[in-house]
């Protein structure tokens, strides 16, 4: 491909580039070229699909610009040449290139590299005031709790309005679909709310609109009764009996029996009964026509003819029925769906929340209004002159619509940007997030037509070895259902590669059937139940784990040019779904192979996280015995079963025993409780206390008791995170877990413990935190969808562990060795109860929107949509395979289990790569393993491991002292040179509470009125006076003198002693300090010092 055209800032470009071909390189290079061309950073908008990708681009850009700023001229020239800068321009651009780094760091406004959602948020913040989006909103990422609440709220409403149409419809749904399918259907509707809005936007009554459209499309007349119609029609009767006669005539015994049954079925005169009686004879349970074939003796032609005509008429009636049923279901479900949506939206509105769907839809609406869209062009601090879109195959129609409106508005204000689109339709695997890969073609055409865009394709990859590419090409090249694939070429032609398809693991025949023999029962004490019947999958897992052991240390991988033995971390394992992961992980664990599974949303289900939750639950619910016992068994306390039994055997005690009362007051303040009525069982916490008091507790129990008691005292006082930190610290949580759990799990367990405390940190930073609130939130998160609950902790330095991902998660990743597991499995089937959608790629709104239940009730009219869906799903499944295979840099291993199924991944790869060739990775030519020196780190100052008590709480000032301070302040404000102030102001300025003020003022004024003090207080008597006079002495110390009075002949230093009077000696040193200091200032004049007491006494200090 010609990078020259792609990188030229003047061009709009659409690049279709295969996996591993360096799309990010291209995109960031183009940004550099734009900056070189003098485009202000603020005019560049780059959008990609994950925050991570955006961050990586940003980092890459910074590194390159630093390179340009810091390397020598030749290097920079090379860099520019590599990015296709015209030779003629290079010298001229050198200084510019050098300055870009600083520009990038400091530009205002700066370049925008963001996700769609990030950018939408920015746009929304600038939304015009009249767009109905004013006021603060908060973006919520977790919506399943909201959804459940909306569902509950709606049900409550239906409950109180049982006669409303919604309530009636809901009952109809319950009756027809049952509770869980109804829920599933309505939740799926809610999930597709953007599409619903897009479909029904601008309609006064969206529900009526949707139903009218559907009715028209299905062509149903709900008043029409197809059964009656069929039964009453003479022609039908004729063809019915004609067929029955055909069956009977020279038919087999069964046929004759069938015939007579048919005739009997007709006897009822009620059309409905008749129809119901006839149907099962002609159709299977699954609704397929029975294959009633003519025998040799029968006249095939006539037989078939009558059969056809009978089935045709029947099928028509059945189809009409199905359509009617589908319509009725839609009527009810859409009505309830809309009610649920209303409830959901109202809930968010009340709490000023916005979810991602709202965000997208609002931006779309905003930009659909041309006045608003234009306004936004003005409102941004700089207009985008260049828009770059990464991973474009993952865009959804709404996002494209938003972009289109944006472009239109830019046109309206005459500032059309260049557009650079890069992506790979082959890697489109996000249909469940509503991405539509077909958009790529539409957009390409649009940009070619309106922006004169260049269309470029890139099929050279920098990632994969030729051997891997051979397999990729072998699978996809020429595949009819994978139209448009072009053979990939390798950039690194010398890179050794290897592809192996392992034999499918199947159950050995002999073991499939259980043996007969005498009836015996398993002894549960000695023999675990082995329900993991030696399944084929089990075998695959064993094969996989064994081979991994073989690979590590023996195969040689190329690590950025260096050849070294493979480690666990070099192996990336991919699965389509997580469903059976446990079995594979189990096999790995058995062989002690460390592995990391980034199981989304799994954190709270892990044992270590449930340990902490149990402990916290106990701390606020001290009668939670199981939780206490659970906590005791964790590595934190590592109490044994003997410890637990010691607690369990303490006999029941009557309520309010002595120890109980005691405990109620001191520690947990927990009354002994009566549980389950009879007998009265003490809570385990009280038992523990008793055991400890009586001296019978083991050291483990003693320690547990001591720590728990401390935490119980803190539980309602400390913020959750601080409490947890205390627990982690005092319970020595990390070290103890590290000691207790198996090596292979250690890193993950520790990371999870860390992740847990970070949840607390985040929750605590939120509003209105409390421990019960925190636990409630956790419970909610646990219930939430997988994608919404907290992820397991990321292991900071992944360490040397094998990684398992779903193919979806592996996007953007690569590894020297990739293993595809379970490749003989069928893709997931449509579970039904969902939204059926037809959104023509280029159009602004879906052309069809309806709901469907199970397969039986779909009806024929919508069949084409289902087919279209199925095709897209198949295409996506191939895309998934493409993504999976292209992750491998050097080696690709493929395994599966069961009987080989045609068209599955395993089958496809095997067909392309029937036999593994020589394995070049096994060559024994590697450099010796370099062990990173884990030398003894510099000895650490031992004091760092010990407490370092620092800081203290200030002693509280006594009321007396406080009054002294206020009086001080008052005097300062009342005495000249301070200006007279009104009382209210004085009160405020001195910070005196109103209640205290009058008394203090009186005291101050009486002091001021003392005749013998007038010479210090009345300006008539002295030359100058200062209040609170600061000075610095020769030692550099800052001091203050309460009042300094200068007379012609002498200087007086007054110090108020308004607290306790008396003890003059105490103040001698202080006054001496004042005197010395003032002597140096007033050289020659005598300096005299005195203390002034609250009662007016003046005590001169000699």
């Amino acid at each position, binding site marked *: 491909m010609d990078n020259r055209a792609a990188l030229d800032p003047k061009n709009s470009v659409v690049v279709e580039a295969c996996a591993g071909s360096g799309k990010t390189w291209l995109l960031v290079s183009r940004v550099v070229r734009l900056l070189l061309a003098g485009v202000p950073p603020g005019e560049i908008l780059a959008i990609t699909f994950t925050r991570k990708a955006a*961050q990586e681009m940003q980092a890459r850009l910074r590194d390159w610009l630093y390179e340009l700023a810091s390397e020598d001229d030749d290097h920079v020239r090379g860099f520019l040449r590599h990015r296709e800068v015209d030779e003629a321009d290079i010298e001229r651009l050198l200084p510019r290139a050098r300055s870009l780094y600083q520009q990038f760091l400091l530009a205002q406004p700066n370049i925008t590299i963001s996700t769609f959602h990030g950018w939408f948020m920015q746009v929304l913040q600038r939304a015009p005031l009249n*767009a109905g989006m004013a006021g603060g909103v908060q973006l919520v990422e977790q919506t399943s709790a909201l959804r459940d609440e909306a569902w509950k709220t709606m049900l409550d409403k239906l409950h109180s309005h049982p006669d409303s149409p919604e309530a009636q419809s809901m009952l109809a749904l319950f009756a027809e679909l049952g509770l869980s399918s109804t829920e599933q259907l309505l939740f799926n509707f809610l999930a597709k709310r953007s599409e619903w809005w897009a479909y029904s936007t601008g309609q006064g009554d969206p529900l009526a609109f949707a139903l009218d459209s559907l009715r028209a499309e299905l062509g149903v007349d709900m008043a029409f009764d197809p059964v009656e119609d069929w039964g009453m029609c003479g022609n039908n009767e004729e063809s019915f009996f004609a067929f029955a006669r055909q069956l009977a005539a020279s038919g087999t015994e069964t046929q004759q029996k069938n015939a007579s049954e048919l005739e009997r079925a007709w006897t009822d005169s009620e059309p409905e009964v008749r129809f119901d009686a006839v149907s099962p004879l002609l159709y299977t349970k699954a609704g397929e026509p029975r294959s009633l074939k003519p025998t040799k003796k029968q006249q095939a032609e006539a037989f078939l003819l009558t059969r056809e005509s009978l089935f045709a008429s029947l099928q028509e009636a059945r189809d009409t029925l199905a359509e009617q049923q589908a319509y009725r279901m839609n009527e009810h479900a859409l009505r309830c769906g809309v009610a649920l949506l209303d409830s959901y939206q109202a809930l968010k509105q009340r709490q000023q929340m916005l979810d991602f769907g709202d965000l997208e839809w609002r931006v779309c609406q905003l930009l659909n209004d041309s006045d608003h869209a234009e306004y936004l062009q003005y409102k941004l601090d700089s207009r985008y002159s260049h828009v770059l879109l990464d991973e474009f195959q993952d865009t959804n129609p709404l996002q494209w619509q938003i972009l289109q409106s944006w472009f239109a508005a830019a046109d309206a204000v005459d500032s059309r940007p260049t557009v650079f689109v890069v992506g790979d339709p082959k890697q489109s695997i996000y249909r469940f997030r509503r991405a539509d890969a077909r958009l790529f073609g539409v957009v390409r055409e649009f940009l070619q037509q309106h922006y004169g865009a260049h269309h470029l394709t890139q099929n050279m990859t920098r990632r994969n070895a030729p051997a891997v590419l051979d397999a990729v090409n072998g699978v996809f090249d020429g595949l009819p259902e994978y139209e448009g694939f072009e053979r990939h070429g390798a950039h690194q032609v010398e890179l050794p590669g290897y592809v192996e398809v392992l034999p499918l693991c199947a159950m050995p025949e002999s073991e499939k059937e259980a043996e007969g023999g005498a009836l015996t029962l398993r002894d549960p004490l000695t023999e675990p*139940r082995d329900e993991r019947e030696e399944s084929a999958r089990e075998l695959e897992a064993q094969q996989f784990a064994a081979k991994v052991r073989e690979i590590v240390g023996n195969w040689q991988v190329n690590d950025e040019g260096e050849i070294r033995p493979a480690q666990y971390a070099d192996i990336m394992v991919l699965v389509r779904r997580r469903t059976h992961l446990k079995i594979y992980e189990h096999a790995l664990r058995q062989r002690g192979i460390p592995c990391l599974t980034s199981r989304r949303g799994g954190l709270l289900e892990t044992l270590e996280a449930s340990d902490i939750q149990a402990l916290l639950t106990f701390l606020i*619910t001290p009668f939670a015995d*199981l939780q206490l016992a659970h906590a005791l068994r964790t590595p934190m306390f590592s109490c044994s*079963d003997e410890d637990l039994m010691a607690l369990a055997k303490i006999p029941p005690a009557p309520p309010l025993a002595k120890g109980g009362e005691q405990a109620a007051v001191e520690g947990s303040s927990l009354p002994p409780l009566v549980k389950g009525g009879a007998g009265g069982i003490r809570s385990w916490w009280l038992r523990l206390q008793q055991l400890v008091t009586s001296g019978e507790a083991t050291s483990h129990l003693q320690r547990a008791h001591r720590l728990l008691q401390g935490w119980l005292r803190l539980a309602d006082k400390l913020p959750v995170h601080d409490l947890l*930190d205390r627990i982690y610290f005092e319970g020595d949580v990390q070290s103890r877990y590290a000691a207790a759990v198996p090596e292979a799990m250690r890193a993950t367990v520790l990371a999870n413990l860390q992740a847990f405390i970070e949840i607390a940190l985040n929750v605590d930073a939120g509003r*209105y935190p409390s421990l019960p609130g925190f636990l409630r939130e956790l419970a909610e998160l646990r219930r939430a969808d997988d994608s919404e609950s907290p992820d397991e902790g990321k292991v900071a330095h992944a360490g040397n562990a094998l990684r398992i991902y779903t193919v979806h998660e592996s996007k953007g990743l690569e590894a020297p060795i990739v293993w595809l597991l379970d490749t003989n499995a069928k893709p997931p089937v449509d579970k039904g109860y969902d939204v059926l959608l037809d959104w023509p790629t280029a159009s602004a709104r879906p052309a069809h929107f309806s709901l469907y239940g199970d397969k039986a009730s779909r009806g024929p009219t919508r069949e084409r949509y289902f087919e279209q869906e199925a095709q897209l799903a198949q295409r996506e499944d191939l895309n998934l395979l493409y993504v999976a295979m292209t992750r491998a840099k050097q080696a690709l291993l493929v395994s599966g289990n069961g009987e080989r199924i045609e068209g599955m991944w395993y089958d496809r790869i095997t067909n392309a790569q029937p036999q593994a060739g020589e394995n070049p990775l096994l060559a024994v030519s590697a450099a010796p393993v370099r062990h990173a020196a884990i030398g003894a780190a510099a000895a650490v100052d031992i004091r760092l491991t010990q407490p*370092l008590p620092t800081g203290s709480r200030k002693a509280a000032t006594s009321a007396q002292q406080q009054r002294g301070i206020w009086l001080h302040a008052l005097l300062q404000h009342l005495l000249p040179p301070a200006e007279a102030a009104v009382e209210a102001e004085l009160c405020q300025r001195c910070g005196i509470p109103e209640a205290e003020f009058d008394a203090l003022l009186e005291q101050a004024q009486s002091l001021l009125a003392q005749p013998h003090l007038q010479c210090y207080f009345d300006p008539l008597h002295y030359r100058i006076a200062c209040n609170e006079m600061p000075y610095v002495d020769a030692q550099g110390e800052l001091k203050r003198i309460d009042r300094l009075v200068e007379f012609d002949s002498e200087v007086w230093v007054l110090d108020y002693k308004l607290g306790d009077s008396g003890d003059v000696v105490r103040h001698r040193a202080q006054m001496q300090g004042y005197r010395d200091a003032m002597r140096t200032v007033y050289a020659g004049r005598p300096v005299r010092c005195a203390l002034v007491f609250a009662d007016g006494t003046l005590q001169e200090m000699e």
Partner: protein
Amino acid sequence: MLPSFFHHVAQRILHVQGDRDLRAATVLLPNYHVAQPLAQAFGEAAGTTVLLPRMLTLTDWAQTVRLDTPIQPDTRRIASLYQALRERDWFGDADLWSLSRELMGLMDELTRHHVVLPESEADFAAQLTEAYRARSGQALQFEARVVHELWYAMTSGSELDNERAWQQRLARLVEAVDGPLYVLQTCNLAAPERHFLQACRERVPVEVFDLREMVAESCECALLSRALQRDANSADLRSDASLLERQPEAWLSSRLQLFGAHGLEQEAQAADVQIRRWLLEGKQSIAVVVQDRLVARRARALLERAQVQVRDETGWTMATLSVSTALMRWLEAVQGDFYYQDVLDLLKSPFLFADAPPAERKQAAYLFEQLVRKHGAVAQLESYIELAEREQRELVQPLVRLRQAMQALPKKSVPLAEWLHALSDSLQILGVSQGWAQDAAGQQLLGSLGQWEDELGDDNTRCNFAEWRRWLAQQLDLNTFRDLGVESPVLFTHLAATRWRSFDAVLLLGSDAAHLPAPANAGQWFNDTVRASLGLPLASAQQAQVRDDLLALLALNETVLASWQASKNGEPNLLSPHLEMLRALHLLAYRDDLAADELGDLLAQAKVQGEAFALPPAGEMPRPAVLPELVPQRVSPSGYNSLVACPYQFYARHMLRLNELDEVREELDKRDYGTWVHAALQRFHDEFKSLLEHERDVAEAALRRISAEVFAGALAHDYLAQAWLLRWQAQIPAYIDWQLANERAGWRYSGAETEFEIGVMENLTLRGRIDRIDYQSEDMEVLRVLDYKTQAVAPLRNKLKEPGEDVQLACYAFDLHASEAAFVALDGGKVDAVTPPQDIAELARLNIERLKSVFERMHQGVALPAHGAESVCGYCEMRGLCRHGQWEEAHG
């Protein structure tokens, strides 16, 4: 040692003012922390005692000026804006409180920068149109209208707002200025202050010490200056670097280090360790400049492990304090019909009922929790009180207290001040005020509530409960609590609070691009060009200020560590652009990237150790040998099932006798359904022993009627009961068919819910209850036991596949010597009996034998292994006890 800048200032002032007595002069400080070092510099420069100039902040100085016009507090302004917005109904459902606050911010900005809007709205719109360089559109017109109309509405009153008051004060202060003025500055002043100094210049000498200029002139700071004091377009990094190479004194390695952490925890650890290292080195003042609050919080917890306390100048938003939690939970409880979680949360707050001993409240919390768990009471105070009166007299009093406190709150719209007053009453009744009085944050909150009530005394904005609660929430979001009661060499503070301050060491925490500078708050009003044309400061001014502050900090402090998360959740995370610039220049000029490498290596070993206690051994599968006295004397079929599934589970359930807590169930679920179905069938068959004796329709109708009666209670409460009822109704015809078929096969209903007891051995009985027993009409001795299951056939069949894995039917059969036993699968519109594939009598015998053998061995102390199968462990509540999954499994 004092930074040289102070000496420079001191010398200069002494030079101008004479060397002993500076009292005639005034020095305007950025904050009071500067006074001490400046005084010290005066002392050192003069070498003797010096009477110091007036040293204060402009804010304090201006406070000494008296104003004649009253000032309108912001609380009242927001309330009037709110009222104005509500009347105009421009914004539909938007949160008007936050809009009001934003608008007030805009008004203040306009005032502060002396912007005067044209008198006519059209003119203003035209002005905006021009500034936007836009065609006029509705959006623009509307923006103009909102700002214009409200601006005039708000500035028409006679009272001053804070910004105007400030300007008036400054204007008057000018007249009072009587001596030379010195100003310490680090960044550009805003308009009013600029005007003030301008006016002063006409009366007295004014000298400004701008740290930026001083830095620019200092050789030592050449690198700082080059990196932080130039605009974006002037650079050539390489030539800068080569210039710097010739200025080795600008080398920063001994002053500044950068630490890029892997994630939050490591950054917090680094902060913790570095601070303690500094303390051990004897540093007396350590400033932690907090940019990222989360890291700071984490670091602070780590410091507390080492008993290092922190003085925190940054403070906490009131909404994040637990004192506020008590308040908001209370209001939530009132608004949410006393939803039990809110009530529980409230009862567990130490601030509630603080006028009584805490044990009483805890007792109440405990009793309440028991009560709601037992009865599944979800909401409604009155229903709790009723329950309490019936079962827990002790709980009545506390609940009644909640009722009284609720009654103190108005039921209709009243002005804000009235709400606050009522709130204070209700908090008094709840004993919350008393609790707050014991707590520093609580005291401040009490004070603030009182102050707002005072301020809003004259305001007549009537609000309903929800509006008022939102107002209160906003107030709690806007106000900060600072606990200044701690004295410590370690100080957490803001960047802006470090102006002209120097510390022994400084840690810049959270110095990534997202926090330093923090993103400009774009807001909904205008854009940069418009702001510029109006005379408002641009976003870049805010950024420039951060840069200036950073420059000052680095110039004044000799030991600085800046840390950030170089990776965050596995994503790269960029360093602050300013520090990045510094690093780049330093690297080029001195081949040193300032990385604090050795700190990272230190972290693992520098953790504070808690008390020593032997580490636990590697986990292994527990196999307790049970004490004979714990072996139960009785077992039920489900207990036996548990024993078969996993002996350890049985041990935990039936020997340790641990149970899960009852959950407060807010929703009906399948368990309820099962109970109702059982009840309905029992009642039905008690009436209809044999269906053959009745018309089918009659029987079916009867079952329908009975079912409706059984479900009726639930239907009254819960809409979902409808769904369950419908599900059951769909089952009824199939059930009737099945029962008829049974009867045709000779089976007759004999009884339901029959208790049985089998003496297995001397000290063990097996006890249970059989769902239903049938007998053969031919031979009454021939019995069959049935167990209803609301499950489909397939899973039930699976249960029975392996002999002895599900013991229920076998136990029943043993008791009655039944010749048949079956589960009745009731699901999916079908009904079917599922029988074990083995001979039932033999199965029953073997099961009882096995039970006996197992118990005999348990009495002998045989170990009970935790070897449940994966499918059992998946739902086992004892997983935390046996630690399944955290021990090494046997190989192969």
